[in-house]
């Protein structure tokens, strides 16, 4: 668990060592019978962070979120919010609100009543409730729908009601469980930016759970990648994408080419002799010794594809185009390298042409810069 201090300005709160963490998760384990959903997780989240828990379904991210909301109790460990031990505090006494994946809108109440529900529990005076509800509905642009029932709304509108309801009490911490999963792509992108605006506007701490790496990278200032109940890596979107710490993270975020090999030389730039044949050099990160089994990971968009043999001798592979997927702005090439490895290359379609420069079955060379490769030392 290498939590690196970030250089990105967006993650600035994370580096601020003076303030104590707003949320501290201490060695939390959650078991359901013999199944371990969350396995000894420790995590600090700072005030005003937009934090994402990213992982495939069943990785324990939702359970961790539900423990923060108080809907599940940790089997072991402690959860502190703002310095206070919240481990056994029931959900209705926590300064936390959650936006549920299913939205969980009360079907028998109007939109306005749904938004007002939390405020009524706090016995806020009626005129203040009215004002706050109007404010919230304006924020999510649903003023005209105040008297509608949830079943009279579209999916996107319901999702915004759920957001307004969870924000109405001005919580210090907002938990979002797959907030955008049910929306189509256009609406999702639009809502992502809305969420970021809201976060900037009212300045609260967001923790979002998602399986969608794009969503996590767009929204979050820091991402924790989870698998099998364990946090594998925490970092800014750039860090976890560009410098994945292990194979799972490398593979889970976007697509990646993994070349297995052994360390050939550690003098100067690190050189790896890959099983596929070509020698690869990269900038050393971490302690490795010659002869150690490693993998070199290269993102598809970092690879240049061409018909000419590149001048460099390292990081150059010869192969044959097997498949081309044209996606408008980019084309994805699948290239079978001489050693048999199937590589993936994303290339921008910079010129406007109906004629392909590189076609199916063409012999091509793949090459990349020394900085593009990432060294992964964990076992496959």
């Amino acid at each position, binding site marked *: 668990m290498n939590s690196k201090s970030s250089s990105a300005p967006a993650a600035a709160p994370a580096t601020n060592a003076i303030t104590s963490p707003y949320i501290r998760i201490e060695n939390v384990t959650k078991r359901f019978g013999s199944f371990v959903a969350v396995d000894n997780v420790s995590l600090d989240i700072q005030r005003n962070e937009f934090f994402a828990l990213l992982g495939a379904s069943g990785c324990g991210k939702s359970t961790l979120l539900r423990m923060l909301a108080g809907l599940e109790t940790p089997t072991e460990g402690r959860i502190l919010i703002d310095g206070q031990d919240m481990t056994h505090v029931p959900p209705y006494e926590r300064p936390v*609100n*959650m936006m549920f994946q299913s939205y*969980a809108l*009360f*079907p028998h109440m109007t939109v306005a009543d749904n938004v007002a529900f939390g405020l009524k529990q706090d016995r806020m005076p009626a005129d203040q409730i009215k004002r706050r509800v109007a404010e919230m509905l304006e924020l999510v642009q649903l003023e005209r729908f105040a008297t509608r029932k949830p*079943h009279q709304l579209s999916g996107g509108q319901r999702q915004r009601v759920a957001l307004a309801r969870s924000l109405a009490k001005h919580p210090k911490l907002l938990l979002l469980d797959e907030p955008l999963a049910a929306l189509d792509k256009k609406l999702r992108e639009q809502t992502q930016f809305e969420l970021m605006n809201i976060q900037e506007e009212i300045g609260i701490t967001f923790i979002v759970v998602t399986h969608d790496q794009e969503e996590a990278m767009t929204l979050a200032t820091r991402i924790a990648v989870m698998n099998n109940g364990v946090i594998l890596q925490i970092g800014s979107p750039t860090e976890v994408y560009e410098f994945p710490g292990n194979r799972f993270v490398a593979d889970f975020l976007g697509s990646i080419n993994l070349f297995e090999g052994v360390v050939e030389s550690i003098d100067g730039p690190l050189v790896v002799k890959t099983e596929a044949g070509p020698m690869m050099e990269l900038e050393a990160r971490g302690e490795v010794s010659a002869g150690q089994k490693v993998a070199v990971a290269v993102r598809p968009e970092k690879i240049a594809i061409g018909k000419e043999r590149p001048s460099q001798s390292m990081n150059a592979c010869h192969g044959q185009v097997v498949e081309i997927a044209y996606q408008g702005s980019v084309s994805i090439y699948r290239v079978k390298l001489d050693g048999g490895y199937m590589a993936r290359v994303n290339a921008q379609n910079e010129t406007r042409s109906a004629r392909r420069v590189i076609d199916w079955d063409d012999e091509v060379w793949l090459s990349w810069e020394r900085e593009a490769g990432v060294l992964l030392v964990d076992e496959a």
Partner: protein
Amino acid sequence: MKNGRFGISGRTLAVAAPYLWLLVFFLAPFAIVLKLSFAEPLIAQPPYSAVFEWTGGLLPRFTGNFENYAFLLSDDLYINAYLNSIQIALFSTLLCLAIGYPMAYGIARAPGAWRNALLMLVILPFWTSFLIRVYAWIGILKNNGILNNVLIGLGIIDEPLDILHNHFSVYLGIVYSYLPFMILPLYANLARMDESLLEAAADLGCRPWKTFVSVTLPLSLPGIVAGSMLVFIPAVGEFVIPELLGGPDTLMIGKILWNEFFQNRDWPVASAVAIAMLVLLVIPIVIFQHYQGKEAGDVK
């Protein structure tokens, strides 16, 4: 859909069959009873006068009258019996609701493996004849019955409790017999309630008891209405339970109906009693249908 050889589609037939069934076995007897209620009793075979006479015209002449209905209104016995029936049915329904709601809630929130077993226990009494089960209560409640003998044997009471053939035993019988009809629709409603709604309420600062009042209870209203109607409607016309468990002062309309029909052999008055009861019951049925329709509309 293509029509068959006789120009009637399978769809039409499928829809027509239940309507035909209702027409033959429900509407026709109802029409006969309605006609009877306008007749006068006779000592003859059949024991009532004709209501329609053929006088050669296109339509038969109506020779009946409304005297039977006027008679129902003039005699306190009938009005009291109606009111009493409604009162007993109403309190029985409330008792069923008070007992049945926690039971249905408990079953709906029980772990999956338990749920079917608990539901089975609710339905189990239906495996025995209703009549026999009501008879069994006589054996339990009578002066030297099981309950009194046990209580005396344990030294809790000296004299047997007078708990048979009075209002208590009628209520007991009705609540016992109709409880499953309250539990089943309530269970169906509560079981499919989205648990995340309760979590959302708690998350928004609502305590468990208030969550029940402001979320669970309103959302289970269709189940409450359905269960209450299923108990109330048959309980109003109940005959077997007041006859077997009730005392001489248990005045229920089902019993009156039976007496008019079989003891007084006054078929027209008995028919009028039946029609009046039907009219009384139509009101709650309409409410029931309204809620059913509303619930169906909400699901969309």
